[in-house]
């Protein structure tokens, strides 16, 4: 009786049944933990963010920030088609960014109101701040590349000037 119970118990452990012979058990356990972690993280994030979504009614952001796209539309200008992302993806990113920013502003409001946030709220604020930084960037690679292009042109102008000075015997 005891033996059959023990057998049933052991066969319920997937790592023992599925583990290849030469795989150390610690490796199998780590894999399980990683898989669980991957599944658990979005769940935990959703749990942390969801209570703040009630702040949407308090912070109706959409009507208050004027995206350039919106201004152009009003002015009757055609918007250039995005190169890398579809309109649907862009719309999703916009709303995701605004939701994250709304959450961040609500937490900041609490921070200033209560003078101190709980450890959990501090962590949540750090997460959404990072998300906003990522989703609503002030500068992009294009900005850096544009400056780089200017420096390259300056280099051409400099070479031309050196050549000009050499021709005229200046220096």
């Amino acid at each position, binding site marked *: 009786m005891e033996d059959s119970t023990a057998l049933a118990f052991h066969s319920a452990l997937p790592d023992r049944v599925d583990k290849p012979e030469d795989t150390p058990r610690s490796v199998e356990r780590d894999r399980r933990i990683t898989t669980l972690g991957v599944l658990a993280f979005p769940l935990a994030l959703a749990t942390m963010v969801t209570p703040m979504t009630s702040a949407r009614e308090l912070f109706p952001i959409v009507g208050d920030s004027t995206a350039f796209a919106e201004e152009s539309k009003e002015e009757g200008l055609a918007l250039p088609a995005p190169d890398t992302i579809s309109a649907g993806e862009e719309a999703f990113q916009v709303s995701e960014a605004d939701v994250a920013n709304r959450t961040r502003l609500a937490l900041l409001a609490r921070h200033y109101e209560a003078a101190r946030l709980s450890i959990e709220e501090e962590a949540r604020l750090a997460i959404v701040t990072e998300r906003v930084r990522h989703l609503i960037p002030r500068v992009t690679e294009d900005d850096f590349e544009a400056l780089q292009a200017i*420096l390259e042109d300056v280099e051409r102008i400099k070479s*031309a000037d050196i050549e000009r000075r050499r021709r005229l015997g200046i220096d």
Partner: protein
Amino acid sequence: MPLNPFRYAQSRYRRKLNPPSYSGYSRYKPLLKQEFTSQCVYGRLPAGPKGEDSFSIDHYRLQSKFLELVTTYANLFCACSCWNRRKGAFWPTDAQWRAKQFIPNPCDHVMFEHLRYRSARVETKSPAGALAERVLMLNDERSVDYREFVLSVIAVLEEKKRRLQETISRIDRQRLSYPERAERLSEEKISAERDLARLEHHLSRVAGGVSMEAL
């Protein structure tokens, strides 16, 4: 004194333009660019090489709370789209106003009393400045890196501009000394002036129209 767009005004800015009332606020955009010399009122970054697309119209007093001010010119500012979006629907509560926690603007407040630049990083000088920095995230690392890059590009441009101006004045002196070479020297001068114009164009894009009032 080297050009530096990253400075906050030490006095309140009085608007120079007095446009007629428009029914749509977006019509004010070209005027706002002119009024604020195509520089963001919060971060001071010029339109720069990316162009005017990086700017949007900021309703200082929120559209949702101050409906009557949606198309009022005095309520509109030229701001980076990013700060505008990050500011979102932030508006101080009564308690925050009492604690002087608000986002300052250059027309109602002396920006330098709240914020200042130390190199490429914004320093806060008041509760309002601290709140503005936090809400707008003025010191996010990428922005600071970019400002440092802008300042280094300005320094390079200014140095090359000086050098070209010197070349041009040396050509002028040669023209006086060697009239027989005047034609060739004129060609060289035209080419140098063309390069100088290119440098000045780059400089105006990167450093913006730094107005004297802002310094």
